[in-house]
């Protein structure tokens, strides 16, 4: 069975600063997918970024980037130039290479302050 651990319940960051969210996972699979989803108070889960385990290059999407360390089973998210609209709950998620069933972490609440 796969597990996903997010050890930071809440992170606070000032506008324009950088914050890094940690995520570790446990699996015996050799190929899989990792995701970061954002959930604002509206409850809508929004995909932030995804990483295929077979790709060594870290994924980036504008101000969002990941540090994927496959051997360490670590998948951290860096938010650069934080904006007030980034305030949300962030979930790390794991998916096997078979079909699209997510295993989510418990989430990290990010609060961006002016």
């Amino acid at each position, binding site marked *: 069975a796969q597990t996903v651990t997010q050890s930071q319940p809440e992170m606070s960051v000032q506008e324009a600063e950088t914050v890094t969210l940690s995520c570790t996972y446990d699996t015996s699979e050799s190929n899989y997918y990792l995701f970061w989803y954002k959930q604002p108070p*509206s409850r*809508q*889960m929004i995909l932030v970024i995804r990483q295929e385990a077979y790709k060594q290059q870290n994924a980036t999407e504008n101000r969002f980037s990941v540090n994927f360390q496959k051997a360490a089973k670590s998948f951290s998210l860096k938010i650069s130039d934080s904006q007030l609209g980034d305030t949300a709950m962030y979930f790390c998620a794991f*998916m096997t290479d078979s*079909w699209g069933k997510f295993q989510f972490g418990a989430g990290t609440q990010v609060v961006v302050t002016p």
Partner: protein
Amino acid sequence: GAGVSQTPSNKVTEKGKYVELRCDPISGHTALYWYRQSLGQGPEFLIYFQGTGAADDSGLPNDRFFAVRPEGSVSTLKIQRTERGDSAVYLCASSPTGLSQETQYFGPGTRLLVL
């Protein structure tokens, strides 16, 4: 096109009652997922439909929970004899075919409160 929609947005019921939660996936998406998100937790998988059939219902907590997708589009999650512990946000997601590399699109969820 329209995204995934869920109705109702909020549902309050009394312990022991029956409830139905509806999910309208993105048109043409054959894969549909239900998740349950308890307060302060990440979503937990309940059931996955591929077309009209439940391909994986291993996440349903007990036989009070049942879901259908009779025509391969709209899905209904049914909860019998509701208990206070069923209170949670129920999320629905869809994807074009169910392959891992596809993006799953989530609805806004139904917040269920059992009194």
